[in-house]
Each structure stands twice: as structure tokens, then as C-alpha cells.
């Protein structure tokens, strides 16, 4: 059993006071406890940015704090080398949707059995407030060309995930602890590529996507009778770019995962498997003229 004490942060948290990441960290700790999995079989893989410092604020859990945009392929390698592990990726919108977008789409298409939690705040926070790929058109920042602000539309991670082939796609909100914990548990337990786009205010840089804004502009998707197995309906919800953002599970289906198509051992893991040298000798001897 995992206790809250085991998860106490190994390092002092460096996020700003009031940062949306605190809600995500709190939810992650609750989810890890409720998951019922031995702690040594959990691995966090993160990218670069404020979001990706999370492994240092949760104790006792294996982690790998990787490269900007690359946590997903690294997590894919970890998962396939040892499919007993639950691999959870923590990434930001700047991480996952800029440098990492190609990997994100391909991982979804492979339906690799990992969970990806995108801390989405619409800015590149750690580099001090530049517009991220999730920033709305017109978002004014220190790198958006004046006067119009970001001269392009944002990446839609939900729509990207659904069309690419992810089999679990949800949106959470850092301010909704209960809902977020449940989404995290469902995503981790889902067999296949599971994505949660987690709305999260950056209190320092983002004057537009604030706690107040999200509290007023989100609604629970499950209360609308949404059918989570209907891909087109899910996409429709993902494309809802109006005044209000749906939160909850958009899409959830079963489909063969990547591991089922890879030459993994029938028993045990790839990491513990040993090639018999006799088999290698036979391969060589069969090549002899």
C-alpha cells in the first residue's frame, strides 16, 4: 500500500504560488495511492518545462526527467522493455504540442499503452511567457509579433489525439480535484494510448486563461449524455472552441495496443529475456555455404 508519507516531495517545489501545477501534483498523488499498484511498478517520464519538474516533487516513484518534447518516445521504450510497469508521461503544452507533436501523433497511432498528462496553460512558462502552441490566436506575449499577438490558431490536442488514433481522450481541470483524480485513474488503467489535456492556469504569465476564466468556462461533459464510444461526436466536442470547454472523457474505446504487435516474450519482460547463444549459433550455421 502506498501512503501519503511515501510520496512526500524529495525537493522543495519551485512553482509560483497559485500555479495550476499544484492541483495536478495533488491529484497525481491521490491517483498513485488509489491505483493499488506497487510503487516500484510506476514510472513517471517528463519532458522539459514547469510541468516536467513534477517527478522531483513526488517521492518514492521511479522517474525520468527527459528532453524537451521527447518524453513520449522515451516512455514508449520503457513500457515495451517492461510491460509490467505503469508509465505516466507528464508534459506541458509547450513540450508536447511543439517539439513533441510528431511523437504525440505517432504514439496515438501506435496506441502505445502509456498515459499522457498534458499540463496545458497556453504559455511557455519556464522560459518566461512566450506564446505556446496552445495559445489562442491573438495572444500577446514577448515573442508574438506585434500588434496582433500570436498570428495563428492553437493546436487542438484533443482533436489531434482522437484523429491520430488515441483510444482514451479526456480533458481535465486542475481546479477540479475529484474529477481529475478519476480521469487519471481511468487513463492509467486504460489499455492503450490515454491522453488527458489538463487545463491549468499559469498565474504569472497568462492573463487570459486564469482560474476565474476556467471556472466560468468549463462544464462537465458526462452531464450532457455524451457517448464516449462515438469518434465523430468526440471530435465534435473536441472542436468546440466556443465560449465553454467540455471537461471529462471525450472518447474511450478498446483497440489492440502496440505491445501486442511487438515480438515480446510470451512470459516475463523483454528486459529479463535472454537470447540463447545456441539459437544464435544455429542462425550463423544456417548461413554457412
Amino acid at each position, binding site marked *: 500500500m502506498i501512503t501519503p508519507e511515501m510520496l512526500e516531495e524529495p*525537493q522543495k517545489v519551485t512553482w509560483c504560488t497559485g500555479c495550476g501545477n499544484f492541483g495536478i501534483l495533488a491529484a497525481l498523488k491521490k491517483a498513485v495511492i488509489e491505483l493499488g499498484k506497487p510503487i516500484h*511498478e510506476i514510472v513517471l517520464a517528463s519532458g522539459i518545462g514547469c510541468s516536467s519538474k513534477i517527478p522531483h516533487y513526488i517521492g518514492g516513484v521511479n522517474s525520468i526527467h527527459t*528532453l524537451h518534447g521527447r518524453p513520449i518516445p*522515451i516512455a514508449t521504450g*520503457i513500457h515495451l522493455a517492461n510491460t509490467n510497469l505503469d508509465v505516466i508521461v507528464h508534459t506541458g503544452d509547450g513540450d508536447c504540442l511543439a517539439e513533441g507533436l510528431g511523437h504525440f501523433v505517432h504514439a496515438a497511432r501506435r496506441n502505445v499503452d502509456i498515459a499522457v498528462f498534458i499540463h496545458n496553460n497556453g504559455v511557455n512558462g519556464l522560459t518566461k511567457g512566450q506564446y505556446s502552441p496552445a495559445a489562442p490566436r491573438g495572444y500577446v506575449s514577448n515573442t508574438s509579433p506585434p500588434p496582433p499577438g500570436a498570428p495563428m490558431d492553437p493546436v487542438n490536442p484533443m482533436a489531434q489525439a482522437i484523429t491520430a488514433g488515441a483510444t482514451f481522450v479526456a480533458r481535465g481541470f486542475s481546479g477540479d480535484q475529484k474529477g481529475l483524480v478519476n480521469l487519471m485513474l481511468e487513463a492509467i488503467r486504460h489499455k492503450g494510448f490515454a491522453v488527458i489535456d489538463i487545463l491549468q492556469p499559469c498565474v504569472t504569465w497568462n492573463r487570459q486563461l486564469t482560474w476565474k476564466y476556467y471556472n466560468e468556462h468549463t462544464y462537465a461533459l458526462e452531464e450532457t449524455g455524451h457517448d464516449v464510444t462515438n469518434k465523430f461526436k468526440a471530435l465534435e466536442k473536441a472542436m468546440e472552441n466556443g465560449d465553454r470547454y467540455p471537461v471529462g472523457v471525450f472518447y474511450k474505446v478498446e483497440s489492440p495496443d502496440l505491445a501486442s504487435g511487438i515480438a515480446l516474450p510470451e512470459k516475463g519482460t523483454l528486459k529479463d529475456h535472454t537470447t540463447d547463444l545456441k539459437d544464435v549459433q544455429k542462425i550463423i550455421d544456417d548461413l554457412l*555455404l
Partner: protein
Amino acid sequence: MTMDITFNIGGAAGQGIDTIGDLLTQVFVQAGFYTFTTKDFESRIRGGYNFTQIRVSDIPIYASVDQIDVIIALSVDAVVGQRDNLSEGGVIIFDESIEFEDLEACHFSAPLEKIAREVGGNVKMMNAAALGAVIAVINFPFELVRQVLTDIFGRKGEKIVAGNVDVAKALYDLTKSNFTGTCKYNLETLEKGSCTDKLILTGNKALALGAIAANVKWISSYPMSPSTSVFQDIVGYSQQLKIGSIQTEDEIASLAMAIGASFAGARSMVTTSGGGFALMVEALGFAAMIETPVVIYNAQRPGPSTGLPTRTEQADLLFMAFSSQGEFPRIILAPKDPVEAFNVATRAFNLADKFQIPVMILGDQYFADSVMNIPRIDVSGVKRDKGKLARSRADPDYKRYLLTEDGISPRAFPGDKGKTIVSAGNVHREDGHITEDAEMRKLMVQKFMNKIPAIMTELNPPQIYGTAQADTTLLTWGSTWGAAYEAVKSLAAKGESINQLHFCDVFPLRTAKLREVFAQSKQVIAVEQNITSQFASLVRMHTGLAVKQHINKYDGRPMTPGWIISELEEGGIV
């Protein structure tokens, strides 16, 4: 007599020149000879002008040569393409369907396709037809061919054997009566050769075999000539041996995945060429920072950019040695041929695990695609050293980056009960969590560097070939070994005082032997398949010793012994 004969089979891509080449190689290998085959092809799927060149000898050979004795041409381009390289008394055999009128005494038009169809009932037997014609021209005993064809096609049934033998015999007889020229080789009285090396391998194939023997459990790659066949071969064995593999979206993901798999405990590798490696550089630094072993194979081709995709060069050495921001240890091994390649592959995985660093295997197209027959590889001597591992008992205080005298911390893996494994690309503390502490930063950099003395003793020293001391020393590394070796041998036989100093383990550089040789030899000549003598630069950087004369080839075509000799002569070196 010494036999040293070179065949060139030329034609368009897709015409089956490789099949004829393979058959010829097999015939001579089965008959007890040494062979060395190179492939010269264009970056296209069909058409163009490609050739396979097979050198056959009754003594060991290690390179291709310039002079061709028999050309088998499947297209008009091939009839004329190598005419200038045809030796005195050489022969060009071409199918009678090829329209070519400038006939000389060396030309011999033969009904290869017609006989294949009429006698064998199958155009595919044109291979056997070509073989029959070649054999007749050089007066090779047909009985040997019959035996070999029976051995090779035996598995496919009697009908196929008989068809191939009949077609070969028909062309043999026809050529005997119609061919009026003489080839300089008359092998009528030939007995079987004495070579018993029956394993026909490319450098790439040997690397793939070495990797599976080393217990590679993960390979993620993106196809890129001339590396791709290693990836293909390992994927081919993956179901049987249980090896995880993915063709990734790009080379960035390839190395990232391999690092992930290695972090989780599986021996991992990637294969690529220079352009793909360029994309991997970011992850290379990450592997170094989190001290996670990984094996990277770069089959070099001429660059920059797309360069010449199917041709050869050794111009990525300094790029491999110094790529990535920051300073950290890495090992580069450059196998000279398939025999060495198998050992290099098994060593690479052990070195990577032992020192928890990236190990690079540096080949090139000439190494990758050239074929030799080598002795049977016995895997019973293969050692698998996983390096320093943490004890399996639970250890709440386990530190993945524990500071130790030799710089190497015991490894554990996620999933190990009672341990927490934390890694980060940031500067980190012993427990893996990130830090900006100045002292810890210094200690962690020193930790990297503390590995180097042990790495140096683990690496193999360079080898001297030829006399222990000489006036002139050729300095070589990687695949140029063979051409230089033969050049030295032939010059030494003429009385020149010349030898060769050759490196397989090129980085970090072992300098003791270099200092000795620079002190002893009057002139040290860099022989490299690049324009700037990159290895010589490395030597100068690490020893202050300057190579003053250079022989460089950078046209994308491999060196031959003859080319090296003529360069040495032109440069007034010999």
C-alpha cells in the same frame, strides 16, 4: 599458380546482377577460394547502371582491385561502363539481345536469356547461363560447377538443380566452341582451393549477428542507407529471439526509445547514417547525462546533407567524437571487416553497460555492403557483461548516481522492488533529483571523467601490420584497412620499407603506440576516405604529433591497393 581474378557483373537496378554475383561468389567459395565482393549502385529502385564486382583468389584478399578480368554485361551501359578497367586479355560477355556494334576482340556476345528459356524453361536461369559462359571463358573445370550448383540448389529439388546445371552446361559448351579469344586465366588444371571459410557475410550482417549474440533486446531505427540492412536483419530475427523493434517516425524518436528501453533494463541499439545521427545528437547527450548505455551504429556515406546515399566515406569521425553540447565520455569503434565487426558488436554492448555510456560503431558503405567469406563464427566465446549492478535486496537509500571512485554507480531498473530510480537530463544529485549546486555540478562532471582511465585500459591498442619498424608507415582506421594492407604488402615485396598502423578503437584515442611509431618511422602517411584526414587531426589534437603527408579519397568510391600505391608514387613517398 596464384589465381587472382576479378569479375564484374553490370546492368540496370532490378536486372538481377546481385543474383548472378551471389551465385558466382558461392561457386568460388564452395570450390575453396577467397572472395571479396563490392557493390556499386545508384540511389534508385530500377534502371541506371550498377555493378557487383567479385575478386577471387587462392590466397586471402581484403580489398577490391581496379583491374577487371571478366565483365558480364546485362545492359549496354555495362558493356562500355568498365571497358577502361578491363585487364589485358580480359573478356566482356554480354547477352546477344543487347545492341552493341563496336565489337573488339574482348567482346563476346552470348545467348544467355535464350538458352535459359529454351533449355531451363525459366528466364531466371540466366544466372546459371552467365555462370556457364564465365566458366568456359576462364577454362574453369565444369565438374566443379556441377557440384556447386547441386549443393546450392539442392534444397530446391532435383528439377531446379538439373535445370540450372543443364543451362550452365549449354552455355559452357556453346562458349567453348564459339569464343575465339583467350582469357589471361586458364584454370583448366585447377583443383579445389584450400580455403575452408564458408560464411559469406557483409560488414552489416556481421554486426547484426554480433548484436543478437550480445543479447540486444531493443532496436528502434529509421531506414537510412547504408545502415538499413542491420535493422532489417535484426527485425528478421526478432520473432525467434524475442527482440523488441520499431521503425520510428524519425531518428529523434529512435534514440529516445532506445534510451527508454535501456533505462528500463533492455540492451538497446539504433542504426543510422550521418544524416540520421544528426537528429540523434540531442538524445546522445541525454544518454550521457543519465549514464544509460546505448549502442549507435553509423554507416557513413558521403555528406554533407543527402550527399551520395549509396556510396562510401569516412567523414563523420569528428562529428561522432564531438557531437552534443557538454563534455562526457563516449567510445567509437570502427571495424575493418566482417570478422572484426562481429567482435566489435559484442564488445560495444559490454563496453556500453560497463561504463554506462553511449558506444558508437562507425562503419561506412564500403564496410557495410562488401562481402567476404570468413571462417565460421563460434559464439561460445561471447561474453555478456552487464557491468556494475545494484544488489537485488530492497534499499530505500539506493542512489542511481552514487559517487564512486571509478565513476560508475551500480545500476538498478524501474520495477526493482524496494528501490526508487530517478534520472534527469538536468544536473542532478546522487539520488537523481535535480540541483544547481556548484559543488555537485563539479562532482558529477568529474564522475564522467573518472571513467576514462578504465575505458582506456579496456580498449584495444592499434595494430601494426607488416614489419615492426619501417621508414614509411601508413596510418589507417576502419574499412580502409584492407586496401592499405594489400598496398603495403605489395610494396614491401618490392623492397620498400613500409608498414601500417591501424586503429579499430578510434576514440578515446590510445596514444602510446602512436608516439612509438612517430619516433621510429621517417614518414607517417594518413590514408583516409575523406578530404581533411580527420583521424590525423584527432592524433594531432591528442598527441601534438602532426601527420605531414596525406592520401585522401572523397569521390564516394572505395580505395583500392593500386590507387594507394599510385598516390604514394605520385606523392614521391615511395
